[in-house]
């Protein structure tokens, strides 16, 4: 073919040799779609991977946009495994696609594991995944995992002379879909589909399985990477591989186990956390959380769910760290709290550590101080930056006995100063990490008691909702977008996320709602009739979308080795995302008005 068609200079293609690129593209066609036209639909068979050469493609799940693909983006890497798509893909504007045949992509993946890893690791977003050190680390973690670590199922061995009926019983009893067949020196496999064939061919049930078995086994050594097994299954369209050790079959690895390994990388992380014997072990597990975030986000997991999952992992990690830092007698007398976004389960990337301690009066305060200092320092080393506002258990103001805390709370409520609302906000979102809940409940009940009927005080607390009045910045942002080459930046946390989270927090306090997660609070507020159901759903949707934007931005920044911030860059948004952002911010504004009416703030 002639030289210089479409230059595949960007990831993941940049690692391929010229010959590999040519193999990939020589069987590729070009496809052109008008705006609004459907490209792929669920359950349709896909035989190609699409590279966007021009235009924008939206991925839709039941009417909701769940993904956007622009120039140099690839979809649908998930279907590479299964050959089927789950969502609809629609051209948002005129779109030109390069259709790379699935077989050619798989062949290239076999030639170049780095190229393959890009798809199977599914960090399929914009540049860097394989070009940058940071990104590489993310999937290397996954792709250095040996098959041994996934855990193959212990195989059931049967003699070749066993009857088909016996094999069926063995499969049923062992909950497996394949048995290994011993035939002298040979080892074969008898699977569910062999069984079906035998039935279909009316083979008597007592005839030996040996004649109906495959003896060409697809094997992987237990020391090989998980990736090899996945590739083998995909290439040969088989459901399982036989795991060997020194050439001897020791297990069967079904595809379903592999896939669940990929989607629940988090299980591995939590195992790592349990097994960590020291801080170094936890630091490693902490980086595993980051990998899980990037992977699960790329897999299309919804952001609120992802946040809750991350919270569960974070909590476990903090609990384990606390066990390592606090001597048993200290740990027994302390309740460790995660505050703020960590407590709500809305922190995904590690942005800061907010924590506090409630300890029994019987403990030596110096011993508590020492454990708290070690804990906060440990968190810092795992990668949780210190809290800018000093809300950390190593600060005297953020640890105390139940009595200390009740006094503090009374001060916050009855003689507030300008920082008080922030302290209260953090405290209202507390969740226990370790230690008895009773101490925490005593403080929390005390706070609810103070707030009861204090409408004016609640109004004061709610007023912080307009703390960051961003209307001007917001207007500027949208105006900038009208200019084709103008770039605009906007703080999505201050402008969109905070007003919703804070308003919901205050309303929940007033209504005596105990859950701290914003989505759970919204649900409860709707159930209690404080907020109309439709409005609550809108708020949840807007919040989820903005959290997703923030996460994408943060992951992108991190991939380029930058600090994650809360700023949305218009250049990184597609028009679909802009529409959704516009809508989300409008909902946040409407909610601000709702809250200020509710508390008669009279400022709007």
């Amino acid at each position, binding site marked *: *073919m*002639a*030289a*210089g*068609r*479409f230059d595949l200079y960007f990831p993941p293609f940049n690692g391929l040799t010229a010959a590999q690129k040519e193999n990939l593209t*020589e*069987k*590729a*066609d*070009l*496809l*052109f*779609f*008008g*705006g*609004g*036209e459907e490209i792929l639909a669920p359950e349709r068979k896909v035989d190609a991977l699409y590279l966007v*050469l*021009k235009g924008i493609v939206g991925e839709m799940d039941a*009417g909701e946009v769940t993904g956007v693909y622009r120039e140099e983006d690839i979809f649908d890497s998930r279907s590479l495994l299964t050959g089927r798509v789950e969502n609809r893909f629609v051209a948002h504007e*005129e779109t*030109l696609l390069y*259709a790379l*045949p699935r077989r050619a992509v798989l062949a290239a993946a076999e030639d170049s594991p780095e190229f393959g890893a890009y798809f199977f690791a599914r960090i399929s977003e914009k540049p860097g995944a394989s070009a940058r050190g940071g990104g590489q680390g993310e999937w290397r973690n996954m792709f250095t995992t040996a098959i041994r670590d996934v855990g193959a199922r212990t195989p059931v061995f049967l003699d070749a002379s066993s009857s088909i009926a016996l094999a069926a019983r063995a499969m049923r009893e062992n909950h497996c879909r394949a048995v290994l067949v011993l035939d002298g020196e040979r080892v074969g496999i008898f699977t569910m589909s062999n069984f079906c064939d035998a039935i279909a061919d009316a083979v008597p049930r007592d005839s030996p399985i040996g004649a109906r078995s495959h003896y060409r086994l697809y094997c992987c050594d237990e020391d090989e990477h998980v990736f090899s097994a996945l590739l083998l299954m995909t290439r040969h369209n088989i459901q399982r591989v036989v795991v060997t050790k020194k050439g001897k079959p020791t297990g069967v690895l079904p595809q379903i186990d592999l896939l669940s390994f990929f989607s629940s990388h988090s299980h591995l992380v939590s195992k790592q956390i349990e097994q960590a014997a020291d801080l170094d072990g936890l630091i490693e597990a902490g980086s595993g959380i980051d990998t899980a975030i990037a992977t699960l986000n790329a897999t299309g997991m919804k952001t609120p769910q992802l946040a809750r999952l991350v919270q569960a992992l974070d909590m476990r990690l903090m609990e384990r760290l606390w066990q390592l830092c606090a001597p048993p007698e200290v740990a027994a007398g302390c309740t460790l709290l995660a505050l703020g976004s960590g407590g709500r389960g809305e922190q995904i990337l590690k942005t800061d550590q907010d924590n506090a301690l409630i300890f029994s009066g019987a403990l030596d305060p110096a011993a508590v101080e020492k454990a708290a200092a070690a804990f906060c320092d440990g968190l810092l080393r795992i990668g949780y930056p210190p809290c800018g506002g000093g809300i950390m258990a190593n600060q005297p103001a953020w640890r105390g006995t139940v009595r200390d805390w009740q006094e503090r709370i009374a001060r916050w409520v009855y003689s507030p100063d300008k920082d008080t609302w922030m302290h209260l906000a953090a405290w209202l979102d507390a969740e226990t990490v370790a230690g008895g809940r009773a101490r925490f409940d005593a403080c929390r009940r005390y706070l609810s008691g103070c707030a009861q009927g204090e409408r004016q005080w609640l109004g004061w607390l709610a007023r912080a909702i307009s703390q960051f009045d961003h209307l001007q910045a917001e207007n500027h942002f949208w105006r900038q977008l009208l200019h084709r080459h103008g770039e605009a930046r906007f703080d999505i946390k201050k402008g969109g996320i905070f007003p919703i989270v804070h308003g919901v927090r205050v309303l929940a306090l007033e209504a005596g709602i105990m859950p701290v997660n914003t989505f759970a609070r919204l649900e409860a507020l709707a159930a209690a009739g404080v907020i109309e159901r439709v409005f609550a759903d809108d708020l949840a949707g807007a919040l989820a979308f903005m959290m997703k934007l923030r996460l994408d931005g943060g992951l992108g920044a991190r991939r380029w080795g930058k600090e994650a911030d809360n700023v949305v860059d218009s250049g990184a948004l597609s028009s679909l995302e802009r529409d959704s952002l516009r809508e989300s911010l409008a909902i946040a504004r409407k909610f601000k008005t709702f809250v200020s009416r509710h508390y008669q703030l009279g400022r709007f």
Partner: protein
Amino acid sequence: MRESLFAALRKRRIRPAYRALFDQDDGQIVSIDCETTSLDVKQAELLAIAAVKIDGRRIAASTAFQAIVRPGSAPDSDNVRIHGLRPADVRGGAAPEEALRALLDFIGGRTLLGYYLEYDVAVLNKYLKPLLGAALPNRKRELSSRYYNWRQRLYPGAYIDLRWETMIRRLAIPALPRHDAMNDAITAAMMHLALEERFRPPLSRDK
């Protein structure tokens, strides 16, 4: 589409051995481009031919036709600079008749598409007439005139720049390196699809 009378007449003049070939029309369009030694049809000799089928919205690049042709005389140096085919490149090419027979098999009776297609077809006919007994009977679709109609509709009476680069820009098509017969044939195909999109009534968008 019904065959025009002229096309039918032209087809009748074609030697019987080839006639059946031109009955093969599956509705696909073939985008075609030639590189030659000169821009003067009388002197021009074929150097390269590329053709790619457009099947609905698919540009079938994977099954495209491409041939390097060995000319009777070496390409002159001015021209080498345009198409990048040096005498050494074309020396290993196919004999013209051989390349053209293969081309005929590829295009069959399908509609041809090109940019200033008239020139390419004129050069091809110079070679094909002795073979076929007549000129190519295929329907022809001129990209630049379709483009002209679109711009006219947008800006009635305005001067319309029909340069290749301008068309690529206005149609927002990714630019491929030029003067490679295959690249040009593919680019023409992309422009064709982009143009058809502009003539199509807009879809209603359900969100």
